[in-house]
C-alpha cells in the first residue's frame, strides 16, 4: 500500500468548467494513498474555484482512480465543506460507493456546539490572569491539604486515626534504613569537600587544626540536615507523589473514600510520620559521616592527628548545635512529606500527571527546604545561638 513516491502514480485532480462556468467538474485520477504525490494541495483547488465567477454547482467524480485511502475522503471533505460554506451545490454521485459512504459517515453526526476548543492563543492579559488563578488554586489546595493533615494529626493524637501499622512499618523502612547507603556516600563526600575548602585558606596561616571546627559546625548545624533533606526529597518525596498519584489514577483513593476510610489518615499520615521519625536520625547519621569525611582529609593530608581532630571537634561543636541541626531536619521532614503527599493526592488522572506530580514534589520541597533553611539560619543568627 505504502508505495515509494517514485513508482506511485501521482494523485491528480482537474477542474473543468462547463456551461458558462456555472457547473464545475472536479475529476480525480490516479493514486490517492499516503505515499502518493498529489498534483495540487486542497488549498490550491479551493483558490482556483474561488477565482473568477463562483460556480453554482460542483460535480465530483473519479476517472481511472487507482488505490485510495483516507487521503481522498479528507481532500473531498475539504472541498465539500468549502462548497457548503459558499452555497455551492455539490453532486457526489460520480464518486465510488465507498467514498460516498465515508463522506456521509463523517458528516452524519453534526459537531456538538461549544465543544471545539479554540486553537488561537489567548491574549497576554488572559494568560497572565489564568496563571494567577492557577497560582491561587494551588495555594487553596495547599491550605486545604494542610488543614486536612492537621485534622488527621489531631485524630492521631486522640487515638482515632485509622491506618495499618504494617503500612507504617513499611514507610519507615523505605524512608530510613533504605536511604542509609546514599546518605553515607553524600555526607562523607560533603565532609570531604568542606575540609578541602577550609584547608586551602587555613593552612596558609598554619591553622589546619581549625578545619575540624569548620567541618564540625558546618556539618552539624547546616550541611547534615540540608543534604539529607535534598536526598530524601528526591528519593522519598518523589516516591510519595508517584505512589499516591498512581493510586489516584487507579481510583484507589476514591475506593478508600467510599469505604469510609480517610485517605489522609490511611495513606498520608503514616508517610508523614515515617519521615518525621526518620529524618532526624538520618541527619544525625549524616553529621557523623560528614565529620568522618572531614577527618579523613585533615588527618591524611594536613598533618593533624586523629586525636587532635577529635578533641578540636568536641571543643567546637556543642549540644545546641546538634539541636539546631535536628530541629531543621524535623522542619524539612514536614516540608518534604507535605509537598510529596500533597502533589500525589492532587494528581490528575493521567500518566503524565503522575510524572508532573513527582517533579513538582521534588522541586517544591527543595525550594521550601532552602527557604526554610535560610529563615532558620537567620533567626539563629539574630538570637545568637
Amino acid at each position, binding site marked *: 500500500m505504502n508505495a515509494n513516491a517514485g513508482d506511485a502514480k501521482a494523485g491528480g485532480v482537474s477542474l473543468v468548467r462547463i456551461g458558462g462556468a456555472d457547473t464545475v467538474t472536479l475529476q480525480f485520477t490516479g493514486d490517492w494513498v499516503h505515499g502518493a504525490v498529489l498534483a495540487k494541495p486542497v488549498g490550491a483547488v479551493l483558490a482556483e474555484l474561488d477565482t473568477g465567477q463562483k460556480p453554482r454547482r460542483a460535480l465530483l467524480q473519479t476517472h481511472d482512480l487507482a488505490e485510495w485511502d483516507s487521503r481522498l475522503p479528507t481532500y473531498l471533505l475539504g472541498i465539500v465543506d468549502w462548497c457548503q460554506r459558499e452555497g455551492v451545490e455539490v453532486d457526489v454521485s460520480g464518486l465510488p460507493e465507498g467514498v460516498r459512504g465515508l463522506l456521509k459517515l463523517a458528516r452524519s453526526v453534526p459537531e456538538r456546539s461549544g465543544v471545539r476548543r479554540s486553537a488561537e492563543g489567548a491574549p497576554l492579559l488572559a494568560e497572565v490572569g489564568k496563571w494567577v488563578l492557577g497560582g491561587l488554586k494551588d495555594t487553596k489546595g495547599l491550605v486545604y491539604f494542610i488543614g486536612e493533615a492537621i485534622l488527621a494529626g489531631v485524630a492521631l493524637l486522640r487515638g482515632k486515626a485509622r491506618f495499618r501499622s504494617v503500612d507504617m512499618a513499611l514507610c519507615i523502612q523505605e524512608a530510613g534504613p533504605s536511604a542509609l547507603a546514599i546518605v553515607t556516600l553524600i555526607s562523607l563526600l560533603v565532609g570531604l569537600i568542606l575540609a578541602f575548602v577550609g584547608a586551602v585558606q587555613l593552612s596558609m596561616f598554619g591553622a589546619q587544626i581549625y578545619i575540624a571546627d569548620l567541618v564540625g559546625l558546618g556539618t552539624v548545624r547546616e550541611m547534615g540536615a540540608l543534604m539529607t533533606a535534598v536526598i530524601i526529597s528526591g528519593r522519598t518525596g518523589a516516591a510519595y507523589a508517584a505512589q499516591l498519584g498512581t493510586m489516584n489514577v487507579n481510583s484507589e483513593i476514591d475506593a478508600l473514600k*467510599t*469505604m469510609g476510610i480517610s485517605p489522609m489518615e490511611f495513606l498520608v499520615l503514616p508517610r508523614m510520620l515515617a519521615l518525621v521519625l526518620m529524618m532526624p536520625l538520618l541527619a544525625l547519621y549524616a553529621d557523623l559521616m560528614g565529620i568522618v569525611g572531614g577527618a579523613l582529609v585533615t588527618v591524611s593530608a594536613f598533618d593533624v592527628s586523629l586525636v587532635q581532630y577529635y578533641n578540636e571537634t568536641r571543643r567546637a561543636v556543642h549540644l545546641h548545635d546538634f539541636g539546631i541541626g535536628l530541629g531543621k531536619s524535623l522542619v524539612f521532614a514536614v516540608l518534604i512529606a507535605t509537598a510529596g503527599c500533597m502533589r500525589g493526592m492532587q494528581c490528575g488522572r493521567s500518566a503524565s500527571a503522575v510524572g508532573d506530580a513527582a517533579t513538582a514534589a521534588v522541586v517544591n520541597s527543595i525550594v521550601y527546604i532552602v527557604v526554610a533553611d535560610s529563615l532558620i539560619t537567620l533567626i539563629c543568627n539574630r538570637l545568637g545561638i
Partner: protein
Amino acid sequence: MAYGDFVIQRDLSFTVSRGDVFIIMGGSGCGKSTLLKHLIGLQKPVKGEVFYDATDFWRADLEERVLVMRRSGVLYQSGALFSSLTLSENIALPLAEFTRLGRSEIQGIVSYKLALVGLAGFEDYYPAEISGGMQKRAGLARAMALDPEILFFDEPSAGLDPVSARLLDDLIINLRDTLGTTIVVVTHELASIFAIGNNSVFLDADSKTMLATGDPKQLLAESADPKIIQFLTRGEGNADTHTPKEAKP
C-alpha cells in the same frame, strides 16, 4: 450537576426503593458517572440533595456521611483494587477496619467472598497479576465484604466478555434476591439493562436533564420519547417515531 459553569444535568429527581436494581442509563457524556459520584459521596453536587432514608447526605456532617458510606459498597469501572495489597488483603481491609472479627474469621469471609465471584484460590495474588475481568470480580468481592445494604456498580460489564458479563448479571440478581441488597448500576449495556433492571433513570446529554424514570422494559413499551426508544433499541427504533438526521454531503 456542573463542573464550574458547565452544567451537565439539572432538575434530576428520582427514588430508589429497597431491593431495586436501579439503572442509571443514557448516552456517553450525559453525566451518568458524575451522578454516581454525587450518590457515593465523591463529589458534592452544585445544587440539590441526596437522601439516604432520612439522612440528607451532603448536609450531614462527616461522621454521619461516613456511616452512610459504610453501609454501601462501590464497584469501580477499573476495579480500583489497592495495587500494593494482595486480593485477600484487599478484601480483608474493610473487615479489619470496621469489624471486630478475628484474623481467622476474616480469612474465612475473604475466601467465601472470593469463591462467590469465582476467584477461589486467588487469595495471594496481586491485582497486577490477574486479568481485567478478574480484577473487576475481585473489586466486587471487596465491595461486598461488609454485606452492604446498597451496592453501586460503575459500568460493570465494560471490558468483560459476554459470558462473564452474564455471570455478573446473575450474581447481581442473586445478591438482590438472597440478601435484599439494593443495587444501583451505571451502564449502557442493553442486555444487562433489560435482564436485571426493574427501575431506572434516563439521562439525556442534549436537554441536560432526565427524560424518564421507571422500569426499563416498561419505558420501552410505553415511552413516546424518540430518544429513549432510540437508546433502548440501539437506534433501530420505530420508523414513525425516529427519523435519522440527514447527512449533509
